[in-house]
C-alpha cells in the first residue's frame, strides 16, 4: 500500500515537474522590466505550464554585451531569451548563438514587411532571421520650447543654426552653468552615433556591403563640427566625460538648451521631479550645412539562445513579445517606441505618448551603424578616437588616420 502511494506520488511529482517549463529572460534594468513583466504575466496566463523569470543586469549596452558574451561563449543554458542591441544580431548570428527563426514564424517576408525596415534589416543576417524586433529607438534633438520662444528662435535645422541659437540663449540667460547643447563623447556606444551623425548627414556611408567606404573629409568635418561646438562654448569643455545619462540628467535639471538623446528621455523630462516639465520639444536632429537630416537608429531585439533547453517555448514567447499587441502595450505603459509603423498612428498609443505623431519620419529616416559580426571592434575604434579628439588629447587628423588604419584591419 505504502509502496503504491509512493509510486503514485513520484509519478505526480514527475508530471508536475515536466509540465512546468521555466524560461529565463535577460533584460537590463533600464529596459523597463516592470513593463515587460506585465507582458510576461499575460503570456503565462495564456500558456499554463510556462513560468517566466527575469534576470536583469548591465545598465549599458556594452556591459550587457560583455555579460552575454561570457555566458554564450561558455555555452551556458541558463538564459532562454535575451534582448539584443540593434548592433549585435550580426555578431550573434556569426557565433551561432541564436536560433534561426525562418521556419518558426510562418511567412517570413510578410512578417518582416510589418516591421519598420531598419529592424527587418538588422535582424536578417545572410538571409537568416536571427532575432525579432522588441522596441524601437532613435536619437532625437530635444529642445527647450520656453527658451526658443523667449528669444524668438525657430527649431534649428542645421548644426550651424543650432550653435547660433544656443549662443543667443546662453548670452541672454547669462548663466555660466547653462550648456548650449549636451551630447555624448565619453568612450561609450552612443559616441559611435555622435561621430556618425555629421558623417552620414554629408551623404557618406562608413560601411557598404561589409566593406569600408571611408571618407576622410566627412570624418574630419564630423570632428570639426563637434570640436567647434566645444571651442565656441556651446558645448561644455568636459564633453569627453559625458555619457548618455549625464546628458539626460543635465537636460532634465534645466542645464542645457538642447540635447542629443535617445527616446527614453521624454518620459523622464515630463516627470514630477523634472525642472523642464512641459517645456520640452522633440525634433529631428539638425543636418550639416548642405547635408540631409539624419538620425542614428537604436532599438532592441529578442533572440532565442542556441543553448536553451526549451527552444520551442522560447520561440513562442519571442513571437508574442514582438507582436503588435505587445508592442502597443510597451508603448503605452513604458513609452518604448513601437516597431510597427502602424502603431505610430494608433489613437491609444498617441493618447499615452502624443509626440509619437512626429516620431515616425525620424525613425524611418534613421540610419543603422555598420552591420558586421566584428561590430564590437568597429565600435571601439570609433568611440575611442572620437573620445580622444573631443578630449583634445589627439588631433583630428591623427585620429582620422588611426581610425582608418584600424578599421581597415577589421573590415578586410
Amino acid at each position, binding site marked *: 500500500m505504502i509502496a503504491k502511494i509512493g509510486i503514485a506520488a513520484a509519478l505526480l511529482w514527475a508530471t508536475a515537474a515536466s509540465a512546468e517549463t521555466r524560461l529565463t529572460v535577460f533584460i537590463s534594468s533600464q529596459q523597463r522590466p516592470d513593463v515587460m513583466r506585465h507582458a510576461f504575466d499575460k503570456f503565462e496566463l495564456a500558456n499554463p505550464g510556462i513560468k517566466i523569470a527575469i534576470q536583469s543586469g548591465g545598465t549599458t549596452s556594452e556591459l550587457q554585451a*560583455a555579460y552575454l558574451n561570457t555566458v554564450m561563449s561558455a555555452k551556458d543554458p541558463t538564459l532562454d531569451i535575451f534582448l539584443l542591441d540593434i548592433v549585435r544580431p550580426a555578431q550573434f548570428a556569426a557565433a551561432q548563438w541564436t536560433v534561426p527563426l525562418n521556419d518558426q514564424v510562418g511567412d517570413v517576408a510578410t512578417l518582416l514587411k510589418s516591421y519598420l525596415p531598419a529592424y527587418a534589416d538588422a535582424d536578417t543576417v545572410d538571409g537568416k532571421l536571427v532575432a525579432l524586433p522588441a522596441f524601437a529607438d532613435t536619437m532625437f534633438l530635444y529642445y527647450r520650447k520656453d527658451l526658443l520662444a523667449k528669444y524668438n528662435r525657430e527649431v534649428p535645422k542645421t548644426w550651424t543654426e543650432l550653435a547660433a541659437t544656443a549662443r543667443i540663449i546662453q548670452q541672454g540667460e547669462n548663466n555660466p552653468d547653462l550648456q548650449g547643447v549636451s551630447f555624448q563623447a565619453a568612450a561609450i556606444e552612443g559616441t559611435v552615433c555622435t561621430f556618425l551623425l555629421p558623417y552620414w548627414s554629408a551623404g557618406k556611408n562608413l560601411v557598404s556591403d561589409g566593406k569600408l567606404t571611408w571618407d576622410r573629409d566627412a570624418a574630419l568635418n564630423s570632428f570639426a563640427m563637434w570640436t567647434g561646438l566645444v571651442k565656441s562654448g556651446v558645448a561644455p569643455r568636459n564633453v569627453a566625460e559625458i555619457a548618455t545619462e549625464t546628458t539626460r540628467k543635465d537636460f532634465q535639471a534645466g542645464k542645457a538648451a538642447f540635447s542629443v538623446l535617445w527616446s527614453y528621455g521624454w518620459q523622464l523630462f515630463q516627470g514630477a521631479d523634472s525642472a523642464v516639465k512641459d517645456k520640452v520639444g522633440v525634433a529631428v536632429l539638425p543636418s550639416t550645412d548642405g547635408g540631409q537630416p539624419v538620425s542614428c537608429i537604436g532599438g532592441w531585439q529578442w533572440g532565442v539562445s542556441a543553448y536553451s533547453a526549451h527552444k520551442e517555448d522560447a520561440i513562442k514567447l519571442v513571437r508574442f513579445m514582438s507582436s503588435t499587441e505587445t508592442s502597443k502595450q510597451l508603448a503605452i505603459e513604458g513609452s518604448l517606441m513601437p516597431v510597427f509603423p502602424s502603431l505610430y498612428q494608433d489613437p491609444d498609443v498617441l493618447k499615452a505618448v502624443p509626440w509619437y505623431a512626429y516620431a515616425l519620419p525620424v525613425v524611418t529616416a534613421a540610419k543603422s551603424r555598420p552591420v558586421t*559580426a566584428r561590430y564590437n571592434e568597429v565600435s*571601439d575604434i570609433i568611440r575611442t578616437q572620437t573620445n580622444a579628439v573631443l578630449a583634445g*588629447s589627439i588631433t583630428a587628423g591623427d*585620429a582620422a588616420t588611426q581610425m582608418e588604419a584600424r578599421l581597415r584591419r577589421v573590415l578586410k
Partner: protein
Amino acid sequence: MPVTRSWRDPTEATLAKWLLAPAFLLLGLIVVYPVGRLLVTSVYELSLTSGLPAKFVGLDNFAMMLDDPVFWTALWNTLLIVVVTVPGSMLAGLALALVANMPFRIRWPVRLALLIPWALPLAFVGTIAAWFFQSEYGVVNDVLRHVRDHKIIWFNSGTLSMMAVCLTIIWKASSFVALILLAGLQTIPAEMYEAAEMDGAGRLRQFWSVTLPLLRPSIVVAMIFRTITALQTFDIPATMTRGGPGNATTTLAMYIHQTTVDFLDLGYGSTLAVAMFVISMAVSVVYLKQIRTNT
C-alpha cells in the same frame, strides 16, 4: 632474497612521491593545463565572430601583435604604471608602516586606517576615484578651485588621466605594502635600537643602519607582490577611465580582456596573454635571482 615491500610499507622516496602527488596534480590542473592551452590557442586563428573553426596560423598572431599600435600603447602604459606606482607605493607604504609602528597607546585605530584601503575592492576604488577626479562635481577640483581659477579636466588629457590613475593605485596599494612592512618592523628586536643608541646613533642613522637593512627581506617580498600586481593592472583604470582618453590609460590586461571578452577573438587574445605571461615571468625571475644572491 630481495625484500619485497608491500604498499602499506613504502620506502621513504615512494611515500614522498605519493604525498606530493596531490599537490602536483593540483598545480597541473590550475597552472600547467591553462598555460598550455593558452600557448596552443595563441598560434590559432580563433574568433567567435568569424563563424569559422579554429585554424592553425603559426606565429601570424605574434607578427600581428608586433604590428599592432594598441598593443604597444598598452604595453607602454603598463610599464609606466609599474615604474611609477611600485616605487610610489613602496615609499608611501614605508612611511605608513613607520607611523603605524610608533608606540601609540591605542594602536587599533591606526591599524584599522591602514587596513581600510587594502580591504576595499579595486573596482570600488576605481569608481570612487573617477568621481573624485570628475571635472564638474569632483572633490579634487573643488579643493583646487581655491588655488586656481580654471578647473582642470583631468580625463581630457592623457598625461593627467595617467597621473590620476597612478595616484589612485598608489593610494590603494600602499596600505598593502605598509601591512607587510609593519610585520617586518615588528620582528626587529628593540635591543638593536638600544645598542645603536649606545653607540651614539641618532634617529636617522638608526633608520639607515638598523631599520632598513633588517627590513630588506620584507621590502623584497612587498616589491615582488607589488610589481606583479602592477603588471596586471586592470580594475582601477577599467572602472576609472575605461582606458581613455583614447587609449591613454589602457593597460595590457585591459586590452587582453577587451580582445577576448568584447571582441571574442580568442586566438589573438591568447597571443597577447602569452606576451604578458612572458613579461611577468621575466620580472619574477629577476627578482628571484635577486633574493637568492642575497640570502
